[in-house]
């Protein structure tokens, strides 16, 4: 014959307490995912690129993607791990000038170094906590609209996601219809980007491409994961 066991687990308060696990009336155990728990505990961060109705122009000198001129970066310092939650980019597809005109966006990772970018090479972004009552600063460094030879050339270790569109027009250039260009990276199982490292996002094209982004991520102490086997 089975014995009954009432389940409890320890909470995340400063002085942890055991708490009953909960079920719905039909016996369904209610669960939550660890990413959501990190956000509730104040480890989620977000920033946006582009103003209310003003996007930022992408690419090197306003055209094709240039590796030293990303549209936004997040520098992950030593002892921190960045976990991507949701990266959303919306591009304002430009007027086509000729067949094979291209507009694209790519988000990648340099797993070896921080960018070393300084404020003069771009715009320092202030990341807000995803629990809006928390005012402390983000341990990672987001920047946007980077330009200039002073930026460290990244080693693109791997891409997280990419979007591209090629124009194929009917008749006269400047009359074709591109359709919308939106990129959403919201992985079920994100990578753990361990500092020092940098996440880079670029957009641009053979015709000048402007855009916006909304970036959501976790920044957690590296010690939470780095001694696992």
């Amino acid at each position: 014959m089975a014995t009954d066991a009432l389940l409890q687990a320890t909470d995340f308060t400063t002085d942890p307490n055991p708490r009953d696990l909960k079920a719905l009336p039909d016996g369904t155990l209610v669960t939550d995912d660890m990413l959501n728990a990190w956000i509730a505990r104040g480890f989620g961060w977000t920033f946006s690129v582009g103003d209310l109705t003003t996007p930022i122009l992408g690419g090197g000198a306003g055209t094709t993607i240039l590796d030293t001129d990303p549209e936004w970066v997040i520098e992950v310092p030593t002892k921190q791990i960045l976990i991507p939650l949701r990266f959303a980019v919306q591009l304002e597809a430009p007027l086509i000038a000729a067949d094979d005109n291209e507009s694209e966006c790519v988000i990648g990772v340099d797993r070896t170094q921080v960018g070393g970018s300084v404020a003069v090479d771009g715009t320092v972004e202030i990341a807000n906590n995803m629990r809006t009552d928390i005012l402390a600063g983000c341990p990672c460094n987001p920047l946007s609209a980077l330009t200039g030879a002073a930026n460290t050339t990244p080693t693109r270790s791997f891409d997280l996601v990419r979007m591209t569109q090629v124009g194929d027009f009917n008749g006269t250039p400047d009359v074709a219809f591109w359709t919308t260009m939106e990129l959403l990276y919201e992985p079920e199982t994100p990578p753990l980007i361990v500092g020092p490292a940098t996440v880079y996002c670029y957009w641009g094209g053979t015709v000048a491409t402007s855009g916006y982004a909304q970036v959501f991520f976790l920044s957690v102490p590296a010690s939470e994961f780095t001694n696992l086997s």
Partner: protein
Amino acid sequence: MVDTLVQARNFNTTPVDTDLRTVPDGALVTGDWKQAYVARGQGWHVDIGDLTTPVAGAGESLIIDIDRPNFVASVPLGWVLRPIRMHVQLETPLSAGDLDEVESLIAVDRKQVNGGAAANGTVFSPFNMRTDIIAGCPIDVVITASGNMTAPTLGMELSRKVIVLDEVGTPASALWGSHDHLYEPKNPPFIVGPAALYIYWGGTVATSGYAQVDFIAFPAAKVTNLV
């Protein structure tokens, strides 16, 4: 070896021990936290637009205007709002020329409620997502600005969609495609009051639309002491 039947406490006013359940192959049945909140009566729904009548973008000059949102949910002190599904559908207008633009934006003022909303828009009573519950929503919702509200500080953008037109030949003859904007994040932010959640739509040409908004609201004390 001892068999152990596992139980958990339920969400009744006086919690009762409830057996956990499996399906025939032994898989433990689990439910996600969003569904549990909705089952407990803490999920809310708002519609903007009538059966076949959309609502115009509220900006005075057609484009998005920060103090004229199409939707504002003011989160009072002591409460948290978490958006679970926000869906905007715009009726893309006739174009007037190349580079015409239509856009929608969902954003947060993390510092204040919108005190000027009710006097400058239509007050909306959210429906509970458990349709037998008729108690009022702790979040104040106003839709369709008719005048200037308190201008928010939109410190946090949640989602955006924009279409730019590249027209064929004569203006007003191009096909924009649909503007269908769905924000249904796996991990939404905790919007802790006082704060407000906004939706805007508009464009360089007059743009009308609809929206359906689902969110969860619960007392802030559940999260504000977590570390």
